C-alpha cells in the first residue's frame, strides 16, 4: 500500500472524529507549549542575567590583581611582561585609592574613591562619560552621580567647575614603598565629564597624576586577549607569575550552571503536562482501535499487510504528535512573546528599561517539536501492535 494512501486514510480517520482529534491534539500542544513557555523563561532569564554581567566583548577581557593586597607586585615590569605574551591585544592598568573632594570655594569635603587609569583602561572597562568627556590630561577629572549628590551639584552645572582633591597615595602603590604614604592636598582640577553611575562616590583621574607622584604600581590590570579562546592560556601564564586573575566567563559559567538546573526544573513541570497529555493520547488511540476493530478485520480480509496496518495506526498517532508539536511550539513561543510585549508596553509607559524575559533557541524549539513526534510514536506503538496482532476473523466478528 502506498504511504500517501495510508496517510490519507489516517487523516480521514482523524478528520472523521474532529472533536476527539482536536481535544487530543490540544492536550499534546498544551504539554509542549508548557515546556516551551517555561524553559524559554529559563533561557530568557539566563540571557538577561548574563547580559547584565557581561557583554560579548567582556569574554575576551579579564582582570589581574596581586595575590596579596598589602604587597602589590603589579608594576611596569609586570605590565611589559604580560604585554609581551602571545595573543595579548591590550593591557591596561588601574589604581584605586582613597581621597577627599571639595569645591574650590568650600572648606567642607567628602570621602571618595579615586580611580586612576589611562584611556585604554576606560575603554576596556567601558567607563564612559554620560556628559562631557573622560579626563585626558593631568589637570582634568570626571566624577560620578554620587559625587554630584554629595556636592549638591547637577550634571549641567558640574562640567567646567574647579574642584579640589586630596589624594592619598598609599605606600603599597609607590615605586619605593619604604618612602611611605604620600598625601597630595588641595590639588585643583577641572571637571570635564560626568558619569551617571551612582554606586560609591568616585572620581576618575588620569594615571599620569599618580605616575608624576612616584606611584607606578597598580591595583589591577585589565588584559584583553585576541580572542576568547586564548583567555585560558593567558590566565595560566599570568597566574604562574604569582598574580591572581578574575574572569567574567567564570561567573557566567556559574550562572549558566544555576540556570541549567532552573531550566530542568521548569522543563519537568512542563513534562508533567506532556505526560498527562500522552496518557490522554494513548487512551484515545486505544478507544479508536477498539471502535475500529471490525474495520481492521475488513482491511486484513481485503489483503492489507500487517506492516501497512501498523503504519496506518502509527501514522494517526504521529499526525497527532506532529500537529500537537507544531501547535504547542507556536503557542509556547507566542505566549512568551505576548508577555514580553506586555513588559515592553509597561516599560515604555513607565519610562523603565525594557527587558526580554523569554528566549526560545530554535534548536530547543525543534527538539521539543521532535519530542512531540516521539510521544506520538510511543503512544501509537502499542495500539498499532495490537491492531497487527488481531485475527481478521475475530476482528470481523467483534461486537
Amino acid at each position, binding site marked *: 500500500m502506498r504511504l500517501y494512501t495510508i496517510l490519507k486514510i489516517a487523516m480521514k480517520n482523524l*478528520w472523521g472524529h474532529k472533536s476527539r482529534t482536536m481535544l487530543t491534539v490540544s492536550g499534546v500542544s498544551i504539554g509542549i507549549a508548557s515546556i516551551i513557555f517555561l524553559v524559554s523563561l529559563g533561557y530568557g532569564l539566563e540571557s538577561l542575567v548574563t547580559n547584565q554581567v557581561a557583554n560579548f566583548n567582556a569574554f575576551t577581557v579579564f582582570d589581574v590583581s596581586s595575590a596579596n593586597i598589602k604587597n602589590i607586585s603589579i608594576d611596569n615590569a609586570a605590565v611589559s611582561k604580560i604585554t609581551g605574551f602571545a595573543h595579548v591585544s591590550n593591557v591596561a592598568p588601574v589604581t584605586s585609592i582613597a581621597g577627599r573632594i571639595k569645591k574650590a570655594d568650600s572648606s567642607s569635603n567628602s570621602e571618595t574613591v579615586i580611580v586612576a587609569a589611562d584611556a585604554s583602561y576606560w575603554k576596556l572597562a567601558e567607563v564612559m562619560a554620560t556628559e562631557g568627556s573622560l579626563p585626558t590630561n593631568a589637570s582634568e577629572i570626571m566624577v560620578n552621580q554620587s559625587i554630584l549628590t554629595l556636592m549638591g551639584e547637577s550634571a549641567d552645572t558640574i562640567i567646567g567647575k574647579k574642584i579640589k582633591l586630596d589624594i592619598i597615595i598609599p605606600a603599597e602603590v609607590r615605586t619605593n614603598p619604604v618612602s611611605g604614604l604620600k598625601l597630595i592636598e588641595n590639588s585643583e582640577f577641572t571637571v570635564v565629564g560626568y558619569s551617571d553611575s551612582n554606586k560609591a562616590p568616585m572620581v576618575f583621574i588620569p594615571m599620569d597624576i599618580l605616575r608624576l607622584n612616584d606611584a607606578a604600581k597598580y591595583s589591577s590590570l585589565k588584559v584583553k586577549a585576541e580572542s576568547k579562546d586564548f583567555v585560558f592560556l593567558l590566565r595560566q601564564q599570568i597566574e604562574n607569575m604569582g598574580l591572581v586573575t578574575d574572569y567574567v566567563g567564570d561567573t557566567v559559567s556559574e550562572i549558566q550552571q544555576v540556570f541549567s538546573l532552573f531550566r530542568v526544573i521548569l522543563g519537568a513541570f512542563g513534562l508533567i503536562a506532556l505526560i498527562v497529555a500522552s496518557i490522554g493520547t494513548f487512551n484515545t488511540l486505544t478507544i479508536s482501535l477498539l471502535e475500529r476493530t471490525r474495520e481492521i478485520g475488513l482491511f486484513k480480509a481485503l489483503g492489507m499487510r500487517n506492516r501497512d496496518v501498523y503504519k496506518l495506526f502509527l501514522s494517526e498517532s504521529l499526525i497527532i504528535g506532529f500537529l500537537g508539536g507544531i501547535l504547542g511550539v507556536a503557542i509556547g513561543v507566542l505566549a512568551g512573546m505576548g508577555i514580553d510585549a506586555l513588559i515592553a508596553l509597561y516599560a515604555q509607559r513607565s519610562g523603565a528599561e525594557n527587558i526580554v524575559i523569554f528566549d526560545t533557541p530554535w534548536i530547543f524549539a525543534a527538539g521539543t517539536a521532535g519530542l512531540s513526534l516521539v510521544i506520538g510514536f510511543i503512544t501509537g506503538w502499542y495500539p498499532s501492535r495490537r491492531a497487527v496482532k488481531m485475527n481478521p476473523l475475530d476482528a470481523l466478528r467483534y461486537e
Partner: protein
Amino acid sequence: MPHEAIIKIKNLCKSYELGDDKKVDILKDVNLEIDATDFCVIVGPSGCGKSTLLHHIVGLEIPTSGSIKVRGTNITKLKTEERSIFRAQKFGMVYQTPYWAKALSVWENVALPLLIDGYKERDAKQIALNSLREIEMDGYADKSPMVLSGGEQQRIGLARALVNNPWIIIADEPTGNLDTHSANLVIETLKNLNKKSKRTIIMVTHNLAYLPLATREVTMKDGQIVSSGDEAVKRQIQNELRGVI
C-alpha cells in the same frame, strides 16, 4: 469444453483445542473441486462449517490438515503476508453484513482492495467508478456507505468484491439481512457475474430458493460434505432449513 477446476480441496480438516484435551472438529475430511465456471451454492444448518470452509478457501484460516489449491497454488503453504496478497488479488468477498471503513466514501471503500494492492489513487478511483457503474450504483460514489440502505450497501459490497477483477467471488450469506427486492437484485448481479463475466461464484446460504441457480450444489452437515448420492440426508437437511426459514 473441458472443465477446469479452479479450486481443489483435499482432505481438509479443522479442529480447535478447547483445553482439558478436548477437541472440536469443525471440518472433517472435506474434499471438493469447484470449476472456474461454477456458481457453487453451499447450504447446510447453522454450525455445519459452511463459513469456516469459505474462510479456509480465502486463506483467512489455516487448516489443521489437508490442502487447498487455487489454480495450482496451495494457499495453506503460503506465509501470512503472501496469503494476504493472494487474497487481495484473486478473491472478492461479500459478507452478510457489509463492513466499511467509516471515514471513507463509497468509491474509496470500493477502491480499498486496489489501494491495499498499491494502486495509485487516481487509477483506483477510475476502476472503482467503473465497478459501481457495472451495478448501477455510480451515483452514490461520494456518499458515506453508512447512510445507504441494507440493499444498497450490499450492492456496494458487491462492487468492492468485483473491483480487483478477481477470479473468484465468495459470498457469505449475502442476502441474509435483505428484503426480498434487494436480495433479488444482489442475486441477479451474482448470476450475471457468473454467466456474463465468467466469474466463479461460491455462495453460502440458508435460503434453498437459490439452489436452482447452482451449477454445483454442496450440502454440509457436521463439518462434512454430504455425498451427492446421499439423497435422504440431503432431503432431511433441506427440510430442516425450510423449517428454519
